[in-house]
């Protein structure tokens, strides 16, 4: 290349210039490095703590670990509520990019019904965006495998394995055990108020009914924590620290599931309930309400269709044993008799001639005995044995309502029994004050007469009745009916002490004997109303029948069960206990619109007692039902 330059290059000047510029460049570099290093110093030394915190915040997540729910056993160690592993498909709405597309793709992959989809959408509205919502429950193993192979296509969707509650005896124990179901907004609010929301951070289901609800605190346990290191995808890399959860307590109930199953079979065709209590400690041996339903439906979220079914006329959701309010009818005659004796209104020798009607002065309307032509001469014993109404009309008249309502409350009528269930009604023990407050009406003498045969304004729950019978057979010793028998601790049952109330004191304890003897007569003497039902029992029992009118029958009208609409038929009631001289079981039966107490309710009570005292027969029940389960 030709050089056109003519001027002579001053090489040393150029070298000096270059050297100067180089030094200036190096100085500039030094300045820039100073800025760079200052900033790095600021980041790494001055604000180290801050960035360290943020770095840890990135990588460390605290995950709550749900405690295993306590198991529930019956008194013989039979498992009534267990935890089974179950797989469900869950969606975290926040992490899904296109929810509709994902749902569409998922329903192609795993059959998801329209109903499940609707329920999911419903659930979605009420849940927080970062909380998982179940799309499908109870995935089969094939479905789990199928999803696992395609999981990468669905960010925010995962298969979760968790222990879920299962009730192997299904309908048999529903009203007693209750069930667990998903924690909803209201539950959450309650938990927050109780300061328990952290303890439930990992918990999915909560007790909604029955023992599951009442003993929720014992059954739930204490949440554990897992401190984990996660990567940028949120995937757990390793566990840094683990504080294990404390599992819930395993509970033992007083119930004998075999007896419960016997009752379920007996009651299959009736609306009503049977309660059996051990009078020696108030332990509830059986508590069954029919119709019942499968509690397992609720565990995974009941479908709207299935739930609609439960809203039928037969009210399966109602716990008839504790919430059903029935006129006690003649079953409270022993109680009333005791009251009369105690108040001195009658003596064991007091006699009355029953013509079949009872007439008050100044009142036109006669009260009829159930036996049209009357029972003739009756004393208190016979009056109970034959269930003479007239005797008790007169007794009630002479006692007066104030005395009745005060003393009947001693048996627990008109009050909660205190059983460990939230689903309970206090029913109604009428009084002047109550009628005034409730109906704004004065108390009429006729009201008192009706109360004398356990009708009219008086209602009781079958459990209340059962409790009152335990007071009778215990001659005043009062126990609160209890479902909880004890807790398993390290393989040993630690018994829960029976809840005993202050005993009911009589001026003359012999009065107990009079009444109990009459109940013995009801079952065992010639004219006893329950004699037929209890013929040839290998044990000696005592009891009292009751037949409650559901509608009032006009004075001259004959009661004809055939003609009356099913819903207007009489309720059949029975209270009983056995063995007579050493009571171990108290049974009350309430059957809606079933007819007479002696023909309908007493045989059921007998069957329950038969099974209870024949352990071989009882064991067969359990085996039979277990094979049906599988």
């Amino acid at each position, binding site marked *: 290349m030709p050089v056109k330059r003519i001027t002579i290059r001053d090489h040393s000047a150029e*070298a000096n210039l270059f050297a100067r510029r*180089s030094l200036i*460049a190096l100085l500039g570099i030094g300045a*820039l*490095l100073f800025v760079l290093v200052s900033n790095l110093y600021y980041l790494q030394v001055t604000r180290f703590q801050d960035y*360290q915190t*943020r770095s840890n915040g*990135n990588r460390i997540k605290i995950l709550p670990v749900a405690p295993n729910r306590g198991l529930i056993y019956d008194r013989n160690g039979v498992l009534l509520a267990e935890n089974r592993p179950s797989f469900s498909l869950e969606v975290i709405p926040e992490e899904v990019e296109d929810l509709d597309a994902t749902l569409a793709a998922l329903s192609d992959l795993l059959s998801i019904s329209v109903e499940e989809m609707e329920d999911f959408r419903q659930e979605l509205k009420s849940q927080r965006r970062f909380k998982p919502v179940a799309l499908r429950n109870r995935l089969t193993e094939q479905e789990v495998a199928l999803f696992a192979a395609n999981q990468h296509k669905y960010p925010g969707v995962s298969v979760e394995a968790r222990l879920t509650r299962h009730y192997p005896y299904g309908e048999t124990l529903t009203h007693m055990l209750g069930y667990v179901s998903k924690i909803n907004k209201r539950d959450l609010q309650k938990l927050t108020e109780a300061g328990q929301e952290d303890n439930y951070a990992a918990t999915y289901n909560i007790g909604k009914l029955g023992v599951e609800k009442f003993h929720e605190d014992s059954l739930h346990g204490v949440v554990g924590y897992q401190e984990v290191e996660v*990567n940028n995808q949120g995937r757990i890399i390793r566990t840094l620290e683990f504080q294990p959860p404390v599992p819930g307590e395993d509970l033992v109930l007083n119930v004998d599931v075999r007896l419960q199953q016997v009752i379920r079979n007996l009651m299959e065709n009736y609306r009503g309930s049977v309660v059996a209590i051990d009078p020696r400690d108030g332990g509830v041996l059986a508590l069954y309400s029919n119709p019942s339903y499968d509690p397992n439906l609720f565990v995974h979220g009941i479908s709207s269709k299935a739930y609609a079914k439960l809203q039928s006329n037969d009210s399966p959701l109602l716990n008839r044993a504790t919430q059903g309010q029935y006129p006690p009818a003649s079953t409270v005659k022993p109680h009333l008799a005791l009251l009369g004796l105690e108040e001195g209104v009658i003596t064991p020798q007091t006699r009355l001639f029953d013509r079949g009607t009872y007439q008050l002065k100044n009142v036109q309307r006669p009260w009829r005995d159930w036996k049209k032509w009357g029972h003739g001469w009756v004393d208190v014993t016979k009056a109970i044995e034959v269930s003479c109404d007239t005797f008790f009309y007169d007794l009630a008249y002479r006692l007066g309502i104030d005395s009745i309502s005060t003393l009947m409350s001693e048996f627990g009528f008109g009050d909660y029994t205190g059983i460990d269930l939230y689903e309970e009604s206090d029913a109604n023990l009428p009084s002047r004050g109550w009628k005034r407050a409730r109906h704004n009406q004065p108390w009429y003498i006729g009201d008192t007469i009706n109360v004398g045969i356990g009708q009219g304004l008086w209602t009781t729950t079958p459990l209340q009745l059962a409790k009152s019978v335990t007071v009778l057979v215990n001659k005043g010793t009062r126990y609160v009916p209890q479902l909880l028998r004890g807790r398993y601790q390290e393989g040993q049952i630690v018994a829960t002490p029976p809840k005993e109330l202050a005993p009911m004191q009589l001026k003359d304890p012999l009065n107990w004997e009079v009444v109990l003897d009459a109940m013995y007569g009801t079952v065992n003497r010639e004219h006893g109303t329950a004699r037929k039902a209890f013929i040839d029992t290998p044990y000696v029992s005592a009891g009292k029948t009751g037949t409650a009118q559901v509608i009032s029958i006009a004075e001259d009208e004959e009661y004809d069960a055939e003609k009356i609409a099913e819903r207007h038929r009489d309720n059949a009631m029975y209270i009983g206990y056995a063995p007579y001289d050493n009571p171990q079981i108290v049974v009350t039966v309430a059957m809606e619109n079933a007819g007479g107490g002696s023909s309908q309710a007493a045989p059921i009570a007998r069957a329950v007692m038969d099974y209870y005292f024949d352990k071989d027969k009882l064991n067969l029940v359990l085996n039979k039902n277990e094979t049906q389960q599988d």
Partner: protein
Amino acid sequence: MKRSRIDPNRVSLWQRLHIDLPLLLGLLVLMGVGLFVIFSAGGQDWDLINRQLVRLAIALAVMILVAQIPPLVYRSLSIHFYIAGLLLLVAVLAFGDIGKGAQRWLDLGFMRFQPSEIMKLAVPMMMAWYISRYNLPPRFMHILAGFVLVMVPTLLIAKQPDLGTSLLIASSGLFVLFLAGVSWKLIGSVAVLLSGFTPIMWFFLMQDYQKQRVLTFLNPESDPLGSGYHIIQSKIAIGSGGYSGKGWLHGTQSQLEFLPERHTDFIFAVFSEEFGFVGILALLVLYGFILIRGMTIAMRAQEAYSKLLAGSITLTFFVYVFVNMGMVSGILPVVGVPLPLVSYGGTSMVTLLAGFGMLMSIGTQRRLLSRQ
């Protein structure tokens, strides 16, 4: 130069091989550091290390090869190199492959390469050749012409768009002008003009993604999950490294993949997290050593072309370091510039070492030149 060592009979073995030993050692140490950090950042993947080793070997071979060619040859080839590079850049814009939203690659059938890489060397060569044809300091007309020579490839590359490379190429050319002794008055006026040019650049020349980068740079927290994520995570990594670092392979930000581009552009964050402030200072000492060595070679060179070329290559190397560390630590916007000799991969490694090859050529062959 008055050094007695410059005696034709006492030429050392290294000099005979045209290798500058201190520079070579500095480069090798940095590369070694790089391998360690890549191993950690890449999730202890030996494959990654093997591939990097192959790449380093090729680059070193190229460097040694380039060092054998006397500076005189480079000088005479400067203009051809430059024109060829320019033509290739135009070709890229016309038929180049598009990768990651930018048109940078030219497919020659048997290989793909980025013509902008050629320009990284062609521009300083061309500038050094052009400016050194005249007496220093250069006259205004020559400066203007030189400026055009720099800006044409710069704009072509910025158009691809490849902001990082165009920045490096522009600075390599401007360094030649600066070292040649452009008057301060002129530098001042250009600075003023440039600040006036900024809004024009913003509204007419910059792509949306480039604007976004600048905006994100100014306030990374405004978009913590989007484009600000890189910078935030990178700052967390650096800051949480603290004074002495979390230790090799123990940087949680990188090991748990919170850091993006861990083994490439953001490798400095991994280094800072695991080796801390002390590590950074040591790393800067290494870079500083190479810088000083490069400038020493430039100052010792006897011919203006060599001086300017060596100076430009060395200073541009520093720009690499500064821009990368600056962007990773949040004082500069994110432009795709790797940390030289440490970051994984990149064709830039070969270009970079070819540049060092030229430096070595200038450093070891100056005696021969001075004789001519």
